[in-house]
């Protein structure tokens, strides 16, 4: 992992199209601005991981419930 030190207002450029700006920092919180092409998906990682986890759980086999659906 590349580690860079930046001050408020300074920018990191990733490739041609992505810029990350440190907007403000206070204590253990950092406010970050990201500008990227529309096609690039940006997520809070813990949220994305939670959706991934829920999708995996949801894809479990439900064959035993199929009768329940058909009875209705």
């Amino acid at each position, binding site marked *: 992992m590349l580690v860079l030190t930046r001050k408020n207002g300074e920018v990191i450029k990733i490739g041609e199209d992505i810029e990350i700006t440190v907007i403000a920092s206070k204590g253990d919180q950092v406010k970050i601005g990201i500008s990227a092409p*529309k096609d690039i998906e940006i997520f809070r990682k813990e949220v*994305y991981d939670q*959706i991934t986890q*829920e*999708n995996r759980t*949801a894809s479990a*086999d*439900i064959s035993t419930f199929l009768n329940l659906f058909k009875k209705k």
Partner: protein
Amino acid sequence: MNNTYKGLMEVKINTKYHGEKEIEEKEVITFVKPIPGFPDEEKFIVLPLDEEGSFFALQSIQNEQLAFVISNPFLFFPDYDFNLEENAVEQLELASEKDVLVFAILTIQEPFDKTTANLQAPIIINQKKNLAKQVILNQTGYITKHLLFPNKKSVVKG
């Protein structure tokens, strides 16, 4: 495991809950972005699971073992409400609200009363172009596990 295309228009696939199924190309939905956790699957079909049309299987046509149970969230959550970000509108090539179809992925639980719906990450389909995306909603208050039957409480005896 892998299904083979036999022709351009009609394809026979194996499914998780519907046995062997002949499907038409126009039924196939393409995900414009991968479903989180399933980066290799992009083509799916929607197959009914019950007679009333409340529950469907979102079946991968590339992997017969992968099927999600989905439902119209507004049936269970009439006040469900969110804004689709401009990004998603563009990716799904949505021109009109009429083309939007919304599904929630269900996590089926035993007993069935404990089943939950993921309202934080609905599946949005452009039914005109058969494009889909699982959209992750931010700061809406919706979570990945909303009880489908919140008022149905088990009676505790003793």
